[in-house]
């Protein structure tokens, strides 16, 4: 029997990100890092709302967004599951976003004055840490 995976996330009020956004970001991060694996069942809308003491509609909206983006899939009458990974963006869009992210990163990092080699090594280390562990 399928069991719900615990969703260990926190939301904060008084944050510039609305609570629904915080849930979307947290679930995406857990999927990206492999902490939630494809096929894992998410808590029910009501269950997660109670866990976080928030309005169930907020959870429902966050789940709907995650499902639309392809991170989660609904199974009829059974709830929501982490979807199998697939290409979620077009190649051009992925390229564009990568360029954007690198541009922002480089702008932030240049003024810090580290040698490029050290920055590259640290980035490589972080990427390795976050890489999905399912390949192991």
């Amino acid at each position, binding site marked *: 029997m399928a069991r719900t995976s615990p969703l260990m996330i926190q939301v904060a*009020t*008084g944050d*510039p990100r609305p609570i629904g956004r915080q849930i979307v970001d947290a679930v995406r991060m857990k999927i990206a890092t492999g902490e939630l694996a494809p096929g894992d069942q998410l808590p029910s809308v009501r269950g997660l709302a109670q866990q976080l*003491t*928030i*309005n169930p509609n907020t959870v429902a909206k966050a789940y709907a967004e995650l499902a639309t983006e392809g991170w989660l899939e609904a199974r009829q009458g059974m709830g929501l599951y982490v979807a199998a990974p697939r290409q979620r963006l077009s190649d051009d869009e992925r390229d564009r976003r990568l360029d954007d992210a690198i541009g922002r990163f480089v702008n932030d990092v240049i003024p810090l004055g580290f040698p490029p080699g050290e920055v590259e090594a640290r980035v490589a280390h972080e990427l390795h840490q976050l890489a999905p562990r399912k390949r192991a």
Partner: protein
Amino acid sequence: MHSHDFVIQTRALSKRYGRKLALDHLDLAIPRGRIHAIVGANGAGKSTLFRILMGFMPPTSGEARILGRDSQSLTPADRARIGFVNEEHTLASWMRVSQVTAMQRHQYPRWNQQAFDNVIGHYHVLPEQKVGQLSRGERAGFNLALALAQGPELLVLDEPTLGLDVVAKRAFLESLLYSNAADDCTVVYCSHQMEEIERVADNLIILERGQLTHMSAPEDFTARVSHWVADVPFKGPDPRTVPGLLEMQRLDGLHHYLVLDQDDGFEHFLRACGARNAQSMPVSLDRAVNAFLAKHHAAPAAA
């Protein structure tokens, strides 16, 4: 949309107390379903609005409808469809909890004992206690239990969690959000506690000086406000020329602007005023509401 799709509808509703207009030609339409939070400075007219809607007080002019009925001619059957919990949690203080409960059970045909028990179970309230002996939190819980047990279509809450301790507040919110009795109920709720509104509200309604100044999902309101920091030499632009200005501060030689409905064009404005650099960031709901209300908030005449 038909008028019965709105639980609350006012047209040019005004209430005057002497020289003061508490409600100023208020046009408000709150759709059925979900949780609506009304926010406003002290004296914005929230409690006056509720008193008129509940038929406790007549308007000076205009019209107020609640569940499609004129609020000034509500029948007992209409009132049974509306639960009302106010800040004072006013109930006859000399009556016993069991007496009040029996009276309400008798009065409301849709009385739901299970809903009552589920809510009151969070509080240490004994049937033989007199209402006057209950603490503020216990009275709040008792009041909400009575209102939910009544099986209302509409629940109107006037600052229900004011002065409650953290445990009572949480119990109150849980009853409101997760109790089955509240499932088919539209909730209209007024509060000053942004933390709570962020957790609870689907819709944010802002009243200022008796008028409606904003209505949308809370996150859409937050998105309207942005915080800019600019390095402008000398005094910077005249505040009257700053588009969408809500709040301005000069901190450590940098100008901070909280502005409404400004896009990247605001950066051009700042640069045109001589800013050497300008950056923007989003703000929290609390900060956004605060700045929005501060703009029209009463303040002593400048010295």
